[in-house]
């Protein structure tokens, strides 16, 4: 059973597992998903990409940021059957840029092409996940989803966190 102790102004409660088994009756205020003040996930309420999302690491802000933004935007808005199939050039530009900064974007040469496809297909999953997740956890579980979500190099990127 739980017991209580008061030390001056501080109250101490010890609880056992059983004490906490009953669901809490504490009331929390419902969150407004469109609250402009709140930190947004990867996809904003109006459908745009949140380039400042912590989950992207610094992909959108590094030296290859503009190429990354073009490629990812193209993919995001792509309505093709194979999503992003018209964005090959953009992705290539991005890769070329990233190759110029091997320190920032560590290359894993053999995995590149396969990862590019893998990431392209899984990016479609990311938007829904990204916005569903509470903003705070974006950099935790969010990182793992967007790891695959963002382009090939970012996988090692976000893991490594040596570069963005």
């Amino acid at each position, binding site marked *: 059973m739980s017991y209580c102790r008061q030390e001056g102004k501080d109250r101490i409660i010890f609880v056992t597992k059983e004490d*906490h088994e009953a669901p809490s009756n504490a009331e929390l205020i419902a969150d407004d998903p469109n609250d402009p003040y709140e930190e947004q996930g990867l996809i904003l309420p109006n459908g745009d990409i949140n380039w*400042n999302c912590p989950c992207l690491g*610094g992909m959108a802000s*590094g030296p290859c940021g503009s190429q990354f*933004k073009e490629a990812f935007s193209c993919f995001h808005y792509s309505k093709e059957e194979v999503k992003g199939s018209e964005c090959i050039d953009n992705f290539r530009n991005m890769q070329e840029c990233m190759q110029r900064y091997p320190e920032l974007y560590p290359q894993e040469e053999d995995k590149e092409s396969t990862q590019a496809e893998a990431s392209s297909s899984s990016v479609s999953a990311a938007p829904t996940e990204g916005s569903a997740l509470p903003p705070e956890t974006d950099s935790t579980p969010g990182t793992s989803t967007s790891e695959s979500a963002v382009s090939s190099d970012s996988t090692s990127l976000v893991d490594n*966190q040596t570069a963005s």
Partner: protein
Amino acid sequence: MLKCRTVWKKLAPLARASSTVCRQNVRRTGLTSRRIPACGPVAHMSTGPAGGGRENQLYILLVGAAGVGGALYTYRTVKGDSQRYQDRIDEISSRSYKRATAEPATSIKSESSVIPEPEPEAAPSQEPEAAPSPEEPSPPAPDAEVAAPETTELPPADEPVVEASPEESAEPAAVPVVEEEPLPPSELSPLTELLPAPVVESEPAAAESPAAEPTEPQPEVVAESGGPAPDSLKVPSHTPYLLIGGGTASFAAARSIRARDPGAKVLIVTDESDPPYMRPPLSKELWFSDDPGVTETLRFKQWNGKERSIYFQPPSFYINAEELNSAENGGVAILTGKKVVHMDVRGNKIKLDDDTEISYDKCLIATGGVPRNLQVIERAGEEVMKKTTLFRKIEDFKSLDKVSRNVKSITIIGGGFLGSELACALGRRSTEYDLEVVQMFPEKGNMGKVLPEYLSNWTTEKVKSEGVKVISEALVKSVVCKDDKLEIKLKDGRLVKTDHIVAAVGLEPNVDLAKSAGLEVDSDFGGFRVNAELQARSNIWVAGDAACFYDIRLGRRRVEHHDHAVVSGRLAGENMTGANKPYWHQSMFWSDLGPDVGYEAIGIVDSSLPTVGVFAKATAKDTPKAATEKSGTGIRSESETEETATSPVASLTLAPTAEQNKDEYGKGVIFYLRDKVVVGIILWNVFNRMPIARKIIKDGEEHADLNEVAKLFNIHDD
């Protein structure tokens, strides 16, 4: 001139004539109106009756002519001015070139100016390239310079605008300073609506000829393709985004700006020699590294096995300062080793310690702070100061690491986050290196200002078990250096002999720029006073340790934690690019004291507030180490744009389970209340539940039973 006068002469009698005509007409109508009052006064225009027609036409013609004449005159004058200006520029540039070769020491780069050439209708601005300059001329930035025209015609007194008229032969030998100043076109303003573009001016200090031609603005440029200065970088004289300070907040802002403003050009100016790095590992992870070369590599291993550097980005991320303006897609440039000494808010520019001036459109002040020192140590003299470390930067870590290997005893003064973490880190080494680690502080226990007393006492015991000699309720009275050892005398008479002191007694926010910038400094918390959107003035934001900001939920405060630097830096960057968001996402902080004690906290965590703690018994699974191993991410701070390491490598196995079962406060949640509302929460050895804590604080509700709220955390779960 003459034309004007003649015109005016003609005009005057005509004006008189027409007015008399007017009056006569009115009188006539006045008579009639008396007879027919119902009609009301008849308003006769001067052009009405046929009698005044011819005169009036002439009148109009002459007025028109006068107008045209005036316009013509103005045009001629301005044209002549610009021509004269051009000539002057050419002369000066040729002159300055001669001077430059004669005085290679003066190597200030200047920019060609952008002058307004107001014409009666339009507002194109001419850009004379006065001298070969690699940088692009500063774009006429109307938004930044709009504020300026409201100023007086002559620039403010503290920035003497000098017009080195070529007529003056006395050329000052002083080093000309490149300035950018908008000059309002004084007498041309009635005719034009042009906003004065930024004007680069030279300021030969000695020869001040205040407005040799007061009627027109004389922007001047001294272009110096100066002799090769040995170490000066080519600093851009204008940058759209200027970030003062090169720490966590600054980097977060740079990233935010670059993400939101495509192609943004960001310049970071820091007086440190290192690019931006994270501070928490300096007092935690780096000390537990197995790598003997860690002081050089500054890399640490996170619990998930992944290694990373404390630097946010490797040097290749940043572009050179001189390439900033020409970079096609913008970038982040860093100027290291430069201190900003003066800030001119009206002129939107700053001055460095080498007298270079840089103007900006938007500026962030993220100057952080300087470690406080004890007065007794400062007064104790140089011998004592040499054996004292004020711990904050990379070089402090390096020197303390070296010291810890070479001395027998280190005393840490201060019982807060930094002091306790360093004590635990050094305590870990105490067995390896035969090092005595002493920690002393005025409170009753470690983290005495943060944790409620019972928890603070419990923590102190933990710190002691890390190999630290803890002296609580210790007030330092004096420190002397005797026989190459330091003697610390406490107020209650105790004497502590040690080889080296680490002072961890707080941070003094760096508000050096407040005076020159005219920014408000908060008297309660220190730091620059800013609003909820981190704004100090319209183009100036402050973030990080130096910002005393208004938290909508928790009131005005100043926070000195890493995650806050990231959150506020990012917010400032967003607001600098037009977001206008207040501080809303509550930052968190964390600390680890050995492998057994780790906590995450959020909000106002002040031990003077009433608290309610809900605890469960800890099992062996509830330690920081276990938490990260389980989640496999090694992430503590959520707002972090980079992963951070959590707890140190626990290479020792303590007498674990027995000891832990005795713990009363193994894990739990502690609520800090202010007027019955939860304003702060500590998650004690309970991890990955920060979002719930954040939500509770955000709601700001009065909860009748906090035990029910504690249930939300599932503290018994693994």
